[in-house]
């Protein structure tokens, strides 16, 4: 019993999950039952995958011990690259491949520069954030190109499922979340990612190719962000150069709220997702409860601090539970 309690208290995503449950109950009451209505949930699940995909990448990268502040800019750059190429007459699949390659290149550069010159990824990716955002505006020429009419929207954003509750993007998100989660927990690469972020000198001494592991995480993070941006653009129907602004910090907040440690090694994909759901629930719930929407950022900020404090308190309590190892 004690052992079980200890195990659950050590799960970093636990605090966030409890809070999520409480908030859902609260907003359901405050909004007079609108919060969990079909229409509201349809809107909620339609937007969720975009930020969740970004948070999955950021969570994995943070577990590996690095940061990426360029995700919001990549979120805009990838679909803009595709839109510009398609406006030049290039077919969707080719434009898609080109967009993904841009993300891979940015992720690789982020990782390579960080490791090769031993600078904090905070700085590398801060620079990359400005570069990628600027490129987005430059290639659009200030006027976002019109998207062709025959895009495979059915593959990404059409409503599916019972009651048309979900969009295709939700399926993409679930599949990707499960795959990345398995990668992290059930493969040797996942083991290396945790070791690299958990204690770099030991990982190096055990012969893990830590530089390549980190670069792979940077690339994964960039590609997922770009893909999420594409989904948003297809949902909105227009590639705006300003999408994804502020997303980088929300994604970090989501990861932290979900129990990912800032200095690496600890965290779970599920935690990052719970963090995103919490942020979305607060955003949506505040509006439905007719609270001034300007309180949103206040709530996210307070939540982030609260989550970290709660997690460290839980972990300390768990450590204090004496069970024989």
């Amino acid at each position, binding site marked *: 019993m004690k052992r079980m309690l200890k195990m659950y208290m050590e799960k970093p995503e636990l605090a966030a999950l409890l809070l999520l449950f409480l908030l859902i109950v609260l907003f359901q009451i405050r909004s007079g039952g609108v919060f969990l209505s079909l229409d509201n949930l349809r809107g909620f699940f339609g937007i969720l995958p975009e930020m969740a995909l970004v948070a999955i990448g950021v969570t994995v990268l943070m577990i590996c011990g690095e940061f990426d502040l360029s995700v919001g800019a990549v979120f805009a750059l990838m679909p803009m690259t595709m839109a510009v190429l398609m406006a030049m007459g290039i077919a969707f699949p080719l434009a898609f491949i080109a967009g993904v390659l841009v993300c891979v290149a940015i992720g690789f550069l982020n990782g390579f520069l960080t490791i090769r010159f031993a600078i904090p990824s905070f700085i590398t990716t801060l620079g990359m954030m400005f570069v990628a955002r600027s490129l987005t505006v430059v290639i659009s020429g200030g006027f976002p190109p019109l998207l062709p009419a025959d895009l495979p929207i059915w593959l990404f954003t059409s409503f599916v499922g019972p009651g048309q509750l979900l969009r295709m993007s939700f399926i993409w998100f679930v599949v990707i979340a499960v795959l990345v989660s398995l990668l992290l927990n*059930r493969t040797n690469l996942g083991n290396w990612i945790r070791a690299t972020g*958990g*204690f770099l000198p030991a*990982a190096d*001494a*055990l012969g893990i190719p830590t530089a390549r592991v980190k670069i792979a995480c940077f690339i994964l993070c960039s590609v997922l962000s770009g893909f999420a941006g594409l989904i948003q653009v297809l949902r909105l129907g227009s590639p705006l150069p300003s999408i994804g602004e502020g997303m980088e910090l929300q994604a970090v907040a989501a990861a932290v709220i979900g129990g990912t440690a800032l200095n690496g090694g600890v965290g779970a994909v599920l935690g990052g997702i719970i963090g995103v759901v919490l942020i979305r629930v607060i955003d949506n719930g505040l509006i439905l409860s007719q609270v001034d929407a300007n309180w949103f950022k206040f709530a996210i900020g307070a939540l982030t601090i609260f989550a970290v404090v709660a997690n460290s308190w839980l972990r300390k309590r768990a450590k204090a539970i004496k069970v024989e*190892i």
Partner: protein
Amino acid sequence: MNGPIVSVKNLHKWYSGVHALRGVSVDFARNEAVGLIGDNGAGKSTLINILSGVQKQDEGRIFVEGKEATISSPRDSMRLGIETIYQYNSMVPTMSIARNLFIGREPIKYSLFGIGVLDMRKMRKESVQAIADVDLHLRSPDALVGELSGGQRQGVAIARAMHFKSKVMILDEPTNHLSVKETNKVIGFVRSLKEQNVTGIFISHNMHHVFESCDRVVAMARGQIVLDRRVSETSIDEVQSVL
């Protein structure tokens, strides 16, 4: 099979102007426990780092079981059967015992380009066995290494080295920051290496620990070997006088 298991010849290493190793040559015999002693900056860590693949020598040759060996990464060193246990601990505290035992050498079920699915059952089973083999009593291989005491961690590190059938085990200050009881346990490990046909290289500041557990003592000072004797033929005073 009577030659030395590891033999280094005329090793040199410079660190931007500092001549850290000045032509070190030494043989380590099979099943021998050797204590490597020296003050800070004497070059013992440099020598160990070269053998474990963390650094590369600027000059000199290394022979393992009579064959010349190139060690340019920790992986090379492990492949040659040399396992190193560092003083700062070669474990990742945020990971479980079972995962720690197999970092970098995970048993895999299916794989593609070297990335594959972990055989978790095998990892758990073998880690329980490996830990029991070094007389360490832990109930669950899923406990985080961060929750273990310093001595238990060293025990797990030694269990790992044993499990992968290393021929040479380098222990870099394994008794630092340990309680007296745990220190005795680690010294016991070093003594028992011989029965397991493992050569032990035991680095320590503490002469008593070395004299208690080793067959031979090698002392280094200013990047050179200044003394190399059987423990039975020397004394703590003599070693101290040459350092």
